Each structure stands twice: as C-alpha cells, then as structure tokens.
C-alpha cells in the first residue's frame, strides 16, 4: 500500500504551509530523507525530507496550494510496489500481427473518448495516449479520492471530484482559490457561486495568525468581512492598456506578506508618534568602539545600541511589550524581550527575531544581527527564527526616507521605525545653532494596548538613553 505523506508541524504555531515547488516528479524514486518538496511557512522556506524510501506515486497538492499542517500532500509507494507504467500495458485485443494495428488503433482511440483515466503529467515517454482496454485489470489507485489530472475534456465524476457549478469553478480559479477547499451548500456539497464568494471573503480577512489566536471573534462573523470591505477586489485593466501590464500569481513570500499586512491593517488600531533623537554622542561612541569590535571579527552598527535602549524602555513601559488575546479578552504582558528586525530581503520583507535581547551584550547582539540579516537575505532562516517577536524595529534609514509610518508586526503591540542619521542645525540650550547628528524615530503602536502618552514617554526614554549612551551602562545586568 502506498503511504501518505502529511505536512509536518514545521514549527510551533505554524498551522499551514504553501507548496512552493516539487523537487521530484511523479514516478521518480526517492531515498529516505531526500528533499522532495519545498514548502513555505509564514515566510520561511524549508525542503521537506522524504519520510520513506520508495517512489513518488502522486502529488496530492499543487504548487501554490496552501495546505494545513497534517494534511496529506503526497503518496509514496514502497520500493517494488509500483506497477508497470500505463503505456506498457497492452490492450486486450486479439493477437496482433502486421496490418492489424490500424483498426485496433482506431478502436482504442474511440475508446479513449469516453473512458476516464489519468495521465502521468511529467514523463512524456510514459504518457500513454491510448489507455488499457477496459476489460483488462487496470492500475487501481487505492486513493481514488485524490485529485488526479484527467484527460482533457473528460473530467470523470470520480469520487472526490468537486461538485461545483461551472461559474463557481471559474470564479474560484480567478480568485486563486482551490475549489476543493470551499465548502458547498448545495446537495452533495455542490459548490455554488455564493459559496465561493463567502469563502473568498473569509479568506481575505483571515491569516494564519488570526486563525490560531483569535478564532472566536466577538463580532458576528458574517458582518465582519463585508463591513470591513475586504471582499477580494478584482482589478480590471483599463481599456487600451492591456499590452502594457504584466500579471504574476500572488504566491510565496508576496502572498505571506500580503496576508500579514492585511491582518495588521485590519486588527490593530495603528497610531503614530514621531520624535527625533540627537545621535551625536552615539555616533562618536560607535566610532570609538568599532575597531574593538572588528578586532573580535564583528561589524558594529548602531542597531545593537538601539535594541538595548528599546529593551530598557520596554521594561519601563510594559504595555508596548504585550499582545491582545481577543478570544479570551485578555491582555498578555510578556516578561521576555524578543525583538523582530525587519530586513529587506531580495524576494520581500522578512522579520527575523533576536531573542532575549536584555540578556545579551552589545557585541553578542551585533554578531547575531549580522548573522540573521545574512540568513534573511539568502533565504536560510528557519521557522523558529522568524516567530515569537514581542516588539519590532524597522530600519528605514538605511534606504533613506525622511520618516515613515511602520505597520505593526502582529501580534506585537508596537514597532519602532528608525531613520537615517543626518547632520542638521539644532538650537542648543544656550540658543546657539549647532550642527548635530539627528535621527527621526517613528513609533507605530496599537492604541488599544498603548495610550498615546505612554507611547510618547516610551520614545522619550529611548531618546534619553541614546542621546547619552553611557546611561546604557546603568541598564547592564
């Protein structure tokens, strides 16, 4: 019997994964632990090792499908279990001799008009146009409910085929939804257009994060998606511009980012507090310490100092280091400090997490920041390395906006945007205009958890520490 392979739990709190790429074809041999499929969870890509030795009999999910943890993704046959390729089977025709081929060719061709069957997609050589005669025992797929690619134009109503009206199938395709996942409200679970629409509306407003922590929503579910206006919006190309646009499927990292951003937009009450900090002393201090760090092989940026200042401030204003458990109507205050660090990787934004920032030295932090950033850019982060943040920092300054309004990395309560350090004229306490190294801070916070005054005080504390960086010593454990 072929074995089913399920999507394993890739990390705690990961509830689903997107099938990015199959690394083997149906019919290919697999060694135990050989990577056979690439799966993306949140934003991290992993190659799943095969749990068995054998032959990949069937892919049960397509590239681009989002699959829940524990769902079956493939069938693997044990070595020796695989039956001969379809094309090797001879039709049950009278013994062939020369000249007899043509009528039987016709006969088989005609037969294939109405016989359902599956075609092995990837292997051109084994793809048999003509299928074995019905009277001969056929290779019977024991998992007949699994989706298979039927010959074109002949979608047999195999058990497990989704019963859906054509308009619903078309709409689901256009919205990029898998019709098989949409619950149908008609007889035999028939999927109607209305079912696709309501499923799409639900999908649009949910993300994996929200599904895990906030399943029972206080608001009536039917009112939620429409009143928030998150029914999928169809973009229509303006007449005359058809040639001047390109379309790509929303997949992988871009889809994960899209879901995460929408969740943040919909489920936080985002408020902005902007301030500025005089970095002159820190610039000088970092210049002094840079060579010491380099001697130990560490590139020293401003980030470890900022992280330290942020954690010190979070300890004073714990509401910024909390989350809201809507389901239980509880505020969760975290007594640990894991700081998410937004990194612009080649294929999109990703937020690796520095753990226990309060318990690490500046040098340790500097080293870890560099490691995580490199991993992020090369796409080698593990699922654990991008989960569990309690607060995030985004370094906008490295690219150069004057200031921007960061979006909260849910379920955090706030995110601090830091900007470029510029020399600017500043009026000093003695009313003199002096040149100082200035930097803008933009704190974006969830106003449900954090009051405006608290946010302002938090910023002032960060500023106080950064402007006189030796104060950080007072915070050292």
């Amino acid at each position, binding site marked *: 019997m072929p074995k089913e392979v399920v999507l394993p739990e890739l990390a705690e709190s990961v509830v689903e994964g997107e099938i990015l790429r199959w690394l083997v074809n149906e019919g290919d041999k697999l060694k135990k632990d050989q990577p056979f499929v690439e799966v993306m969870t949140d934003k991290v890509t992993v190659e799943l090792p095969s749990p068995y030795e054998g032959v990949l009999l069937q892919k049960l999910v397509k590239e681009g499908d989002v699959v829940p943890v524990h769902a079956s993704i493939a069938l693997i046959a044990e070595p020796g279990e695989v039956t001969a390729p379809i094309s090797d089977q001879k039709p049950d025709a009278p013994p062939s001799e020369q000249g007899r081929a043509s009528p039987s060719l016709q006969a088989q061709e005609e037969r294939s*008009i109405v016989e359902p069957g599956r075609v092995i997609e990837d292997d051109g050589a084994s793809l048999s146009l003509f299928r074995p005669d019905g009277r001969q025992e056929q290779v019977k797929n024991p998992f007949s409910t699994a989706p298979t690619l039927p*010959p074109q134009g002949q979608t047999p109503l195999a058990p497990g085929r989704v019963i859906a009206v054509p308009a619903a199938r078309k709409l689901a395709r256009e919205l990029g939804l898998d019709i098989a996942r949409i619950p149908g409200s008609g007889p035999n679970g028939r999927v109607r257009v209305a079912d696709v629409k309501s499923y799409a509306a639900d999908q649009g407003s949910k993300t994996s994060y929200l599904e895990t922590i906030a399943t029972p929503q206080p608001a009536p579910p039917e009112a939620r998606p429409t009143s928030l206006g998150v029914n999928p919006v169809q973009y229509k190309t303006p007449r005359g511009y058809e040639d001047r646009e390109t379309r790509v499927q929303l997949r992988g990292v871009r889809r994960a980012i899209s879901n995460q951003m929408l969740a943040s937009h919909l489920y936080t009450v985002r408020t902005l507090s902007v301030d500025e900090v005089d970095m002159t002393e820190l610039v000088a201090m970092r210049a002094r310490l840079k060579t010491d760090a380099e001697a130990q092989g560490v590139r020293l940026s401003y980030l470890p100092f900022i992280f330290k200042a942020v954690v010190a401030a979070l300890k004073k204003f714990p509401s910024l280091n909390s989350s809201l458990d809507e389901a239980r109507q509880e505020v969760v205050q975290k007594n640990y400090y894991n700081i998410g660090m937004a990194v612009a990787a080649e294929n999109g934004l990703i937020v690796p997490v520095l753990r226990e920032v309060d318990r690490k030295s500046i040098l340790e932090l500097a080293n870890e920041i560099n490691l995580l950033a490199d991993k992020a850019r090369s796409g080698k982060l593990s699922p654990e390395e991008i989960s569990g943040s309690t607060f995030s920092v985004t370094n906008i300054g490295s690219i150069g906006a004057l200031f921007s309004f960061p979006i909260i990395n849910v379920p955090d309560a706030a995110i601090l945007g830091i900007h470029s350090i510029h020399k600017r004229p500043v009026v000093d306490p003695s009313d003199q205009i002096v040149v100082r190294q200035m930097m803008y801070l933009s704190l974006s916070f969830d106003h449900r958890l954090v009051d405006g005054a608290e946010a302002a005080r938090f910023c002032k504390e960060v500023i106080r520490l950064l402007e006189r960086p030796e104060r950080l010593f007072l915070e050292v454990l």
Partner: protein
Amino acid sequence: MPTNYDLIVIGTGPGGYHAAIRAAQLGKKVLAVEAERVGGVCLNVGCIPTKALLHAAEELEGAKQGGAFGLEVKEASLDLKKLAGWREGIVKKLTGGVSQLFKGNKVELKTGFAKFVDKNTIEVAGERIQGKAFIVATGSEPNPLPGFEVDQKEILDSTGALRVEDGFPRRLLCIGGGAIGLEFAQIYKRMGAQVTLVEFMGQILPAADPETANLLAKILTKQGLVIRTNTKAQKVEKKKDGLVVTLEDLKTAKQETLVVDKILVATGRRPRGKGLGLEAIGVKLDEHGYVLTNEKMETSIPGIWAIGDVTRPPLLAHKAMKEGLVAAENAAGGNAVMDYHVPNVVYTSPEWAAVGMTEEEASKAGYKVKVGRFPLSASGRAMTLGSTDGLIKLVGDGETDLLLGAHIVGPSASDLIAEVGLALEMGATVTDLGLTVHAHPTLSEGIMEAAEHLHKQAIHIANR
C-alpha cells in the same frame, strides 16, 4: 523588421478560429495562419458537409417511408448536382462567415504552411513572423490503413466520400464502425448503395455504452445496413467485377471475400503535430504525434499552447472550440482550465449521443451504479414522429443520487444530450432531472421519465 503579434494561431478550424477571436476580444493583436482553407476540416470536409448529406438522405428516406401515415411520393429522387451545390453553399457561407468574423474582430489572416523557426518565430510562405505566444491548432487527418491506400476514386477517405456529384456506388464497404464510418454508411445506404460495415472490435462505437451502441447497430441493421463486428478487412484486389476484399472473422478466424465497387476507410484520424518544427523548439509530442498539454492547454514550452485534435482524443470540434477559448484566455493572461464534460454524438438517424460516464466507468470509479431507462417505444412524441426505435438511459449514483452520465439513441439525441450536459456541469442529482417539468409531448420527457425510472417511479413504463 518583422511584424510582432501578441498571438499567432496556427490553423483556423473550429478550435483555431475560436481561439483567435477570443484572444482578439481580449485586446490582443492576433494573426491566424491557415495552410489550406479557413474553417478547417470541420467546416470544409468534416462535420458540416457530412451533416448536409445526412439530412438530404434522411429527407429522401422520409419521402420513401412516409407510407405509414399516408404520404405517397411516386418517385422520390435526388438531383445530385443540386445536392452538391447545396452542400457547397452551406460550406461557403460558414467559411465566409469565419473570414468575416476575423475581419470584424481585427484578426489578421495569412495563408501558408507555418513552421517554427524558434519559439518566438514562425516562417510562413518564406516570411518570418514573430509572436509573443502561439496556439497550435493544426487538427488531424484520416488515419491510413495499410493495404487500403486511398486514391479517392475507388478507395476513399472521409473527404473523398463527400463527393456525391458523380453518383453513388452500387456496393460500398465501410471499414471502421466509429462515427465517420456509421454516418457515411447510412448516407450511402439511403442513396441506394448496398453497404457493408466492418468493425474490428466487438461492437460499433467500441468505447461507447454497449447497450446503446448495440441498439444503434440493431436499428441500422433493420434499416438494411450489414454490420459485421469482430471483423478485419485483410486485403483488397482489383478484379473485373469490382474490388474483392478479403474479410476475416476474428472469432472463428474464417476468411471470406466480398465484392464491392468502392471502399471507405474510416479507421480513425491521426494528429497533425509533425512537420511544424515543434519538436525542434522543444515542444513535446507523444509517440503518436499528439502534442502534450496540461489542463490549461500549455505545451512543454511556455508561451506555446495547443488545442483540439492535435492534442489528444476525443477528436471533436466542440472539444477543440472550448479548448481554443481556454488557451486564448490563458495566453491573454487569464486563468482558465479545460475541466468540462464533452458530449459525443453520432449523427445517424436515429442519432446516438452520450455525455459523462458509462455504467462500467462509474462502477470502476467506485459508485454504486443505478440505471434508469426510457425506451422511445413508450414516448407519444416518438410515435408521432414515426421513430420509436431508441432508448434514453441515465447513469446515477445510488448512494448520493448524483447524476453521472447519459446515453441516448433516438431522433434529436444530439440536442437532448445538451440538457444532461448542463445537469452534469451543475452537479445535478437524478432527482433534479425527474423534478424538472418537461413539455409534453416531447422527446425530452424521456429524460425525466428515465430519471423517475431510476427511482422506480416511472409512469409510462414498468419499474423493474
């Protein structure tokens, strides 16, 4: 600087012209390339002219057989020149219509045989033309039968058999009991020929539901056609008194000879996938020359699509048309797949039509098969048409009542099957068909009655 098109469609048969027009509707700059005649096999030498001849033959037969209700036609006859002219008129009107549709949709047309230079360029009549995407819709051609080389004089294929101007042979042998063989056998029979049809397999329409296929064979036999299944045409010799064909009964291995004047070879069709340079640019074909595609009609080379007969059976115009739309929509950046039920029709009278699964396929797929039947002998409408030979048969799932398929023999079966096609696409239950009010008296009532019969509740027939 060669002209650059968004899409080049190679072949203007039913699939090709659908693809070209749909792509143009979606705002693409489209070129259609045709090596022979616009409209392809279907319009010029396939579906359309055959149906014209079938209709003429049926009218002639009707005039001859009208005696039952008192119609007296002293001598019914056909003017074959006029018949040929009428057939050509229809073909011209339809192919002209396609050309007009091209113009109306700003699809450019170029005549010549297209050959791929690379995956963005074809050469047509010495000119290189570039396209961002291509749809290969080159169709199929009759399958040759070794030993029976077509000369279109004595040994014909479906194209040669359309020529009626010079009269019909006294004796015809049809090799192949598929749709083409059956339709021509009936035309020739009704035009006065003695027709023998041989089929290699155990039943005509070998892939079809055996009950309805055998019923059709029985009705056609009753009309005077000689049908021999399990029979192979071995060889032919030209002698003074005609073509002497050696036939072998595959069950008994006995051989005998049959003398005829003409032979129609109708042993299926083969794809026209070779000679286009497809393989050279990396498009994969199978060993029979069919272009391999997925359900979006994409070939193994991105940007090159293939549809219709050149891809895989069933070789049916309406399958090609839908595939053409799917490919065109995808080539224009859409997301369409070919996931529809394709009905299959034989246009003899009575007609045979089917859609969905046979009983055997349904039980193989794991359904608890239930069958409902309605013989046309119980239909008032069939009686008034003088055509009570026929059967409407529905296949359903006993557990969920899901409708799985239909197989019909009878007048207008080709039109009746559309209702069941829609029902299948809509995921209807057999009960849905039974509960739908059908006008009386119609043949379509038979579908409702067959549905009721499946639940043992038919009114007009015994519910066994």
